[in-house]
């Protein structure tokens, strides 16, 4: 439905004989509404539309481009910039141990994504080990076990142990001795109001000094995306973001807020429940989908 509204808007712009200040005002209103329906944060929407308003009439357009195509390009570019542009994501180093710490809100898709990342890195030739450090959710260890066994990726966990920090410490030591290239640590879901859990993950990061902290964001996350992501970036050094469940009806606009709040780029997107349902994040493709 949202895709329809933005798609219609783009069509409307194309049909216009030209764009003057009044037509632009209507275009901006439509655009704003479409962004909000895609869950882009209110303040970001307002800021983006302000920028477009200024640029649409103040910039010199290359000859041959209709102002309306210029406006569409402005919208596209503005959003791609918000996503951290097309910057290169940090690669993991081979020939040494890399530790990845997965964090995120309850139910966002962390555990499933750990399975997907294990499969992804294994197919790239890395030796992967996983530590199940979720001491809260019943069946968390079994869930990982069922995901990883077909992949032949080793799992370390202690379902009876209630202290997550203890498990992580033991797990890292265990895999260091096993000559593993990448250790992925799965943690319990938590949100910004659970201060003790945010403290726990902060302690965990200080203790294991991961090479990368990945924040997993649910593609359906709405206006709360910014403040939740901010809390995670205050507790840990979020290095990248993975947006899940983009195979559904959600547009993932909340991801823009998460990037803005953490200054971390989106590295992958989850597009299904299968272990292979992980795709490289391509900003222009994501924006194209956002824009219908």
């Amino acid at each position: 439905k949202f895709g329809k509204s933005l798609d219609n808007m783009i069509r409307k712009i194309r049909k216009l004989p030209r764009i003057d200040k009044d037509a632009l005002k209507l275009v901006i209103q439509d655009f704003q509404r479409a962004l909000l329906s895609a869950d882009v944060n209110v303040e970001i929407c307002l800021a983006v539309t302000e920028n477009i308003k200024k640029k649409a009439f103040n910039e010199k357009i290359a000859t041959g481009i209709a102002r309306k195509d210029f406006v569409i390009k402005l919208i596209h570019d503005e959003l791609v910039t918000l996503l951290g542009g097309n910057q290169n994501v940090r690669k993991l180093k081979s020939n040494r141990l890399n530790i990845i710490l997965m964090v995120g809100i309850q139910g966002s898709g962390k555990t499933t994504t750990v399975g997907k990342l294990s499969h992804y890195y294994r197919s790239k030739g890395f030796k992967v080990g996983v530590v199940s450090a979720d001491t809260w959710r019943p069946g968390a260890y079994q869930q990982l076990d069922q995901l990883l066994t077909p992949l032949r990726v080793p799992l370390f966990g202690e379902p009876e142990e209630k202290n997550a920090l203890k498990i992580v410490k033991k797990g890292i030591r265990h895999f260091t001795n096993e000559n593993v290239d990448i250790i992925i640590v799965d943690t319990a879901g938590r949100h910004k109001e659970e201060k003790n859990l945010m403290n726990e993950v902060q302690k965990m990061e200080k203790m294991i000094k991961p090479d990368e902290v990945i924040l997993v964001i649910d593609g359906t996350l709405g206006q709360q995306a910014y403040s939740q992501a901010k809390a995670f970036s205050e507790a840990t050094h979020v290095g990248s973001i993975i947006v899940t469940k983009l195979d559904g009806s959600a547009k993932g606009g909340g991801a823009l807020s998460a990037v803005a709040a953490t200054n971390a780029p989106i590295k992958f997107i989850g597009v299904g429940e299968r272990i292979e349902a992980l795709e490289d994040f391509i900003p222009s493709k994501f924006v194209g989908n956002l824009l219908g």
Partner: protein
Amino acid sequence: RTLNESNMEKTFEELEMTLIRNDVAVDVASEICEITKRNIVGEKVGIFSLKKSLLDALRVAIQEILSMDDISFSLLDRIQEKKKTNQPYVILVLGVNGTGKTTTIARLCKLFKDHKISTIVAASDTFRAGAIEQLSIHMENVGIRVVKGQYNSDPASVGYDAIDSAMAKGIDVVIIDTAGRQITNKNLMEELKKIKRVNNPDLTLFVGDSLAGNDVLNQAEAFNSSLGIDASIITKVDADAKGGAALSIAHITKRPILYIGIGQGYDDLKPFDPEWFVEKLLG
């Protein structure tokens, strides 16, 4: 002065933004503001009370959506009514991935137990890794029987077995846990229809994540049109969710929000209070 389109315009834009900031779906927010505008156009207000009158009218409009005449809907009463017929009250729980269905079922079991209502649960999520173990451990903690099958067995028949078992043992309630699914997945939506057809639930319960934005409207709309939603529960309200999701769901399903999830413990389920909610939304 008299309220008309132009003097209300600016204030309504602000109110609409407030609703959107609190996760009310854009379409729902604008529709509510339109309805409110139409209701009060032509009314007389004092020069200083414009904003207050608009806010009050909006409050009334929202209350109306949330307090539909089903607010007299008491789940516990309905279960007691069904008890008299010697048939179990069957609840089918559905929703997209990760919204808190399984955890909510555990909380409902605890609630029923506290009210001397016996329950049996069907582990009809036979797909997701660890789903059966997760539900089994929850049920063990609350002291409730689970009927389960093998992974990849037919979800509808697990529900059927649970109902058979409930009938044989005189158990009051059967709750059927289903796998999370995206509304865009035709096969999974068909599977859910089959589960409903085979098990004929008394209550089809939608579980939505209060942190979800506009998509919760798509979800509620899709499940409602293909299966029919009788009531909803929104979870993770403790995450400082502004709760707009409740309004979007109530608006599209025209059915009550029964409870809100406020944490991960077995007692973290509170009855939904429309008045408290409206204050939270407009406060």
